């Protein structure tokens, strides 16, 4: 999956109308809360990437979410 496709998927999963960029601060996304994290866990699960709520604890920017998906993102 390309980075752009993943960014779109992230926005859809979090259900935000914000244009997400790698530098977007997670704190600036109103919809980024504990339910969004559960939704993202489901997204990563579909990508066969094992994650836990702890993996989200210290993330700061959208690029960290991309990094979490590892090699699934081209």
């Amino acid at each position: 999956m390309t980075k752009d496709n993943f960014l779109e998927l992230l926005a859809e999963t979090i259900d935000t109308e914000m244009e997400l960029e790698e530098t977007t601060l997670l704190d600036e996304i109103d919809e980024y809360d504990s339910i969004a994290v559960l939704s993202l866990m489901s997204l990563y699960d579909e990508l066969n990437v094992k994650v836990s709520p702890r993996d989200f604890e210290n993330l700061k920017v959208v690029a960290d979410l991309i990094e979490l998906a590892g090699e699934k993102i081209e």
Partner: protein
Amino acid sequence: MNNLIIGASSGIGEAVTTRLGGVAVARREERLKQFEKYEPFDISNLDEIEEFVKRVAKKYGKFDNLIFCAGIQNIKPLKVTKAEDILQIFTTNLISAMLFAKAFSSKRVCNQNASMVFISSIASLKPESGILAYSASKAGLNNFIQGSAKELAPLRVNGIAPGFLKTEMTEKFSSIYTDEFIENMKKNSPLGLANLEDIVDTIEFLIESKHITGEIIRVDGGAIL
């Protein structure tokens, strides 16, 4: 007593079969071989439930109790839940339960004073974020327990609503149900977390109580309070 136990390969079903005995039913045959009497069956084959129950009753004799412990859970916020997720949960937790009750209630299958016990959940009474399909399926099950207690009397139909339990079903979500989460649950339950034996005690109580029907007993250590 001749018990028919559905979902006997793990968790509550395994514990109740170990303690009370009966015909153990589950999909995974290798997990049933520990029991003297067992019948492998995939309960999501809804069209085959009635014939299956008739066949098992013919083989083992009429039953005294149906103990329905099968259940699945998925943790997904509604916004990422798909139709197939909801369908899968409702098929196992509610539709198959209803069809087993239907088949069991036949005079050719159960004895006159027979009873049924279904495992619900406190999520049916207090839904939590992330498990809405599960909570709704169990709320439906509660309603079915009460309705069928009326329609199927003198058969007795009861349920148990456990709080959080450490079972194979919840262990699947160990990344969410972390040690920290479980510690927190313990703190919020006046009596702490229940264990499988507490649930089996209550099943035993319900099948022996001859004048209780349509009841759903919480066994949650007060977690809902």
